[in-house]
């Protein structure tokens, strides 16, 4: 019992908040579902590549609560996200916007695929048409072939 008390104290004092806490969950399941899906796309600013949904940092908890406040106040998803981006910068968005230079990021894959397809098509055409017959056998090779065939 003593051990348990000591443990509890240790745990309480040492443990930061812990991902989504039961006390954060909104009563309205539809609203909560929206909050969850938005917070899966928002970055915890003090963590290494963690969403505020997964993170146990207290800043992430603050953001989760802020997000839920906005949603409860009647914000649309886009409004709530814009509100947070206004305050924390686009660094908070795990899904980078598709505008400006970010277009390079989004279009890089498709562009590379098209370029690759074009190259591959050219290559395939060459492989099909360059069916030039191999160079004729030299005298030595003809002789060797005849030898092999005879045996």
């Amino acid at each position, binding site marked *: 019992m003593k*051990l*348990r008390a*000591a*443990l*509890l104290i*240790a*745990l*309480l004092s*040492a*443990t930061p908040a*812990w*991902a*989504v*806490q*039961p*006390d954060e*969950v909104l009563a309205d399941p539809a609203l909560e579902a929206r909050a969850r899906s938005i917070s*899966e*796309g928002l*970055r915890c600013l003090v963590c*290494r*590549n*963690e*969403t505020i949904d*997964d993170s146990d940092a207290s800043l992430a908890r603050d953001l989760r609560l802020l997000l839920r406040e906005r949603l409860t106040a009647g914000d649309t998803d886009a409004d709530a996200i814009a509100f947070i981006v206004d305050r924390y*910068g*686009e*660094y*908070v*968005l*795990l*899904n*980078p916007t598709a505008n*400006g*230079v*970010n277009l390079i*990021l*989004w279009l*890089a*894959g498709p562009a*590379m*695929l098209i370029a*690759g*397809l074009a190259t*591959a098509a050219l*290559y*395939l*055409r060459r*492989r*099909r048409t*360059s*069916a030039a017959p191999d160079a004729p056998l030299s005298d030595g090779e003809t002789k060797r072939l005849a030898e092999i065939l005879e045996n």
Partner: protein
Amino acid sequence: MIIELGHFALILAFAIAIVQSTLPMIGAAQNRAALMAVAEPAAIAQFLLIGFSFAALTYGFITSDFSVALVTANSHTLKPMLYKVAGVWGNHEGSLLLWVLILSLFGASAAWFGGNLPPTLRARVLAVQGLIGVAFLAFMLFTSNPFLRLVTPPLNGNDLNPLLQDPGLAFHPPFLYLGYVGLSMSFSFAVAALIEGRVDAAWARWVRPWTLAAWIFLTIGIAMGSWWAYYELGWGGFWFWDPVENASFMPWLISAALLHSAIVVEKREALKSWTILLAILAFGFSLIGTFIVRSGVITSVHAFANDPERGVFILMILGVFMGGALTLFTLRASKMEAKGVFSTVSRESALVANNLLLAVSCFVVFIGTIWPLVAELFFNRKLSVGVPFFNAAFTPFMVALALLLPIGSQLPWKRASATRLLVPLKTGLILAVVSTALVFAMQTGHSALGPIGAGLGVWVVWGALADLWQRTGRDNISTRLSRLGRLPRADLGKATAHAGFGVTLFAVAAMNAWSIEDIRVLKLGESFQIGGYDVQLTDVKGVEGPNYQATVAEMRVTRAGALVTTQFPEKRFYPVQGMPTTEAAIHQSLTRDLYLVIGDPQKSGGWAVRAYVKPFADWIWAGALMMALGGLISLSDRRYRAAAGAKRSAAKGLPAE
């Protein structure tokens, strides 16, 4: 004393690597057998010396020698023995030592088993391998020496990060490194072939087993890491598109492409220069991965600025090796003229499509990983690229790959008729469409991901089975069944690996689409329902571990009144590092994992509890293991045993390291 000997052995290995990288290269150029013959003993000596050095550092960790700075920083007397040993590579310097150890192991294996290689090729391969050794040994000795001593040793160490104190993660780095560094062999073969100016079927046959072995290790290493994240991090996520994960995933994608293109070189003598390029890039991505992980540049530009020495050094290594190899490539690639001729619909074209999709998907991962850095450096925008981007930008390529795979893998070489091919696949196509529709009808209001994943999974697995069945010829069923076991191992391996891909694809989609989650406060004795199960919190007690304190909960899981299981999720606290970890309790079954986590005690009484039902979770890793197993079966194919000597046993001997 032993530590100093280890240090000395490392310096000696550096000297030998310099010899290994120069003399055989000169010997091969001037065709002087004596100089070329230096390569093999040098490679073996280098391996033995680094092996000794590694053993010395391990000794330091096992005996908790806190006069060694590295041991102090990463170990503790109370740490279990397994993690004292794993602590050797659980840090920057030690993991680099493991890196060069494996590098020299591959070099030594090439010396041991490369007996049937042409002497000049063997000398050049070993010289290039030696050159990589020179670069990394210099990196270690000048910037990251693991053998530095402390003037006043402390009484105890700082312990290893508790998250890393886990059996899954203890063996994750060695496997990953066997894969990363294994690709150095493909690189060495590619550069040697460029210097020789000759790439032919025999070359492909030599290089493929090494690539295959590296790919197998990468597959296992990545699967282990993802499995660890799943059970250790406490919310059942298994892949986060973290830069460090991407660092291992990029070489995996490229080496998968390389495996396939090497087949075309081997069987049809086409795609030669492309295959060489892939071999160079595969190792290039290994180096990029090492750079990303070791310099910390992606996590934060500032981490890089704080310790620029190491980052710049790896960047230089990357620049020299990639720059050099790619220059050589542009000079020599035109010499690699293709011989095989094939039509647009053929196995060759299908493999070109495979390569295209794998290479582009790798490129997408690459640009997503470095984009935050590029945007900050050049466009002054501080932004993030996370899971939503990768899911959107990467997934379509995998879907396309899965759609093409069953068709492409059965196309005949040279020329084929697409319509004739569809006959054996007709049943598979129908099955896939039916399962998509069925799953779609069963679930309501979920994303389309689940049905598509199920359909693709069925399609790919069926394709793999139909492929095998086709290979048994046209006879009655019993004859064909008996032939099944006598098919070449390469065919069996191919089908196994392809089926594994289908299984993983399906499981990833299922997990993403159908996971159920519940978060709540539970008082002792209370219960709640999740996915048809009743979970009751029956007890919470404190337990002392060897180097941690744990809170252990007891949860009774029942279904319709019948006891399913009793689970004991834990929450641990490691006092030395002041860090808590969660140890989720996972009840596994064929169709789902029940994932239970105990959280913090609440002010209002009771405990925070999280519960998940993760459908088909274990299939993700089962599929990955099938891929690795398929690789292993393929590696044991006769043509490698006959043609490449004992390379197979080289690969087999590796896991023991």
